[in-house]
């Protein structure tokens, strides 16, 4: 008897649950009708960030949060904690929440077909930032915003070329080591390609290419072993700031001097990102001779793209953010890559100053 009672209670509870769902269907329809009327009032953007692994990533997230703070926008931010499955969950939630736009910074390049087609079926435009997605149908997303990593590499190479020519150093006297980023990442591939092509064209010698995994510790480790192996290194090409900090530490510990005066035995360090405070400080001191900026401030650009779509326009498929190049070495003022002239700026005073100047 008691058991029957329990079963009955259970069934009752289940029926409550089921009716709960049933009524939700009705609610859903009502809500949709309501939303249709006041469309255009506030624009809701769902942002699925891949994680919070580096300074660059955090600045990137903050830029998105700032760009969509108030001003007729609501941003729902979801941290994927480096996992694609979390990002899939987040996008599905955005779809059910009927956000107006989805911004995705994907953890991996592949595996997005099904969830992006769900967004498309729901009529929600998707904007990809930073890394790219590899989908069979390119129409699954409206556009992409990010950095041109190969251009960054070519800019640094162009700076090295301009500087050494100015100093009257023979190209065959340049002995470069490349401390690469995490192998296979878009940034590593682009920056390595940029240097490799320039070295081939100019006849520079690349002594070694080894990965420092974008970290300071690994950068120090790799540089220490490279210094033991080669005694003629005069340029160290680090694929991000953290590696450069580690490499400088290693060079100084080995009793050598860091700087741009390679004629007199100094070892020149060049780097990428310009997000890390210490690296910018090093650039001001001349320990890092040249930094190509990797602009994490995607927020304003994404906002502009959304405004274009809102106004009924079709944005460009691939959008590169503007990126500068910094150096405290006075000899080179401009570099030319592909016929476009880039001014070489002095390293920014503080990070907040850099933020203000590039968002303006």
């Amino acid at each position, binding site marked *: 008897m008691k058991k029957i009672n329990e079963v009955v209670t259970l069934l009752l509870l289940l029926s409550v649950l089921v009716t709960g*769902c049933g009524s939700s269907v009705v609610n859903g329809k009502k809500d949709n009708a309501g939303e249709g009327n006041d469309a255009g009032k506030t624009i809701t953007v769902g942002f699925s960030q891949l994680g919070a692994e580096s300074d660059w990533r955090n600045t990137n997230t903050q830029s998105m949060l700032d760009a969509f703070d108030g001003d007729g926008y609501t941003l729902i931010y979801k941290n994927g904690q480096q996992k694609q499955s979390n990002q899939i969950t987040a996008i599905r939630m955005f779809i059910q929440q009927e956000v107006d736009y989805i911004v995705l910074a994907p953890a991996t390049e592949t595996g997005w077909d099904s969830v992006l087609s769900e967004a498309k079926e729901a009529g929600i435009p998707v904007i990809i930032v930073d890394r790219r997605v590899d989908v069979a149908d390119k129409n699954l997303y409206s556009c992409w915003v990010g950095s041109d990593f190969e251009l960054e590499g070519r800019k640094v190479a162009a700076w090295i070329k301009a500087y050494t020519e100015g100093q009257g150093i023979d190209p065959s006297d340049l002995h470069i080591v490349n401390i690469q980023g995490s192998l296979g990442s878009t940034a590593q591939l682009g920056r390595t390609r940029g240097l490799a092509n320039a070295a081939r064209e100019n006849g520079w010698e690349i002594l070694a290419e080894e990965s420092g995994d974008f970290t300071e510790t690994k950068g120090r480790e790799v540089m220490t072993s490279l210094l033991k192996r080669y005694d003629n290194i005069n340029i160290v090409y680090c694929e991000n700031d953290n590696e450069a900090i580690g490499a400088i530490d290693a060079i100084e510990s080995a009793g050598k001097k860091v700087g741009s005066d390679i004629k007199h035995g100094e070892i020149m360090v060049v780097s990428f990102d310009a997000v890390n405070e210490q690296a910018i400080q090093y650039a001001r001191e001349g320990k890092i001779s040249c930094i190509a900026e990797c602009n994490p401030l995607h927020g304003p650009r994404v906002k502009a793209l959304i405004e274009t779509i809102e106004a009924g326009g079709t944005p460009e498929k691939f959008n590169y953010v503007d990126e500068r190049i910094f150096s405290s070495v006075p000899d080179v003022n401009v570099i030319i890559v592909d016929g476009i002239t880039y001014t070489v700026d002095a390293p920014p005073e503080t990070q907040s100053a850099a933020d203000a100047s590039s968002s303006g």
Partner: protein
Amino acid sequence: MKKKIKLNDSNLLLVITIVIFTLMYLGAIIFQGGGFTKPQMFFNQFNNNAALIITACGMSVVMITGGIDISVGGVVALVSMCCAVYLDNPNGNGTIGGSILIALGIGIAYGIVQGFLVAYLDIQPFIVSLAGMFFARGMTTIVNTAPFNVENEKFKALKLTKVTIPFIGSINKKGEFSPAYVEIGVIVALLIVILLFVVLRWTKLGRCFYAVGGNKQSALMLGINVRRTKFLSHLICSTLAGIAGYVYFLHVGSGSASHATGMEMQAIASSIIGGTMLTGGVGNIIGTLFGVLSLSTIQNIVSLAGLDQAWWTGITIAAMLGIFLIIQSVVMAQRKKA
């Protein structure tokens, strides 16, 4: 007589879990509205957590028997990596059937080894499965270091297959009716829930699990083969972890050493929320299902409420676990008094 009271305890905790979940979901519909008013949001809780439902079910069985298995997340990662490597091999002869066999094989092998160590060599299940977890994570990296996606056409077709639910759906932004759907993994998960529910409720083996977890000594005196029962509980758990690995693989379509990190902890949390007690002898599979749903719903509520940082999710889950544990112990204490 003793056994009967135990079953009733299980039912009481189950009822509490279902009531709290229902209230939570209704609350979300009323106060947050938006996505929660749509049936697909409800089904997404299943779509996103099919693998977790399966692992949590296995975990519940082990916990009811008085053990624990923290290797399940590692097994899920290992299975997805092995299946990915197999299906994506350059010869292109990987078949779906073969990959399912790999998944089951890894799960069963894990169950036999861990079950044997726990049941017949009397090693603490925590230690055994801790070693199992490290082994699985390590093996995953040995099989392949870099994460990669599977390009096998048959597999991709299976991955994209959706089961639409008739008559339930919502009107999307374009004004079209889009029916609600679930992934294949959800069907598998629900079948496993039903199967385990039947086994635990109406079979001799099921009752043995409760008896061994409730009191090993009296179970021994009742003539139950305690070692065999423990062994079987680990075998079931690891086999389910293998199946969950395949379902997870089907969900993300890639192999990676970082897949399913922390899944074992989510499975334990779901089981506890679902009314399974770590001390053993009490638990219910339907409760575990609702435990998983409660966990994922609370995560959605938290992020839709604008508490966007990752740690908020952790804090809410901790608070929720705390609340459930307090409710459980208060209710159990009341019952004992009565």
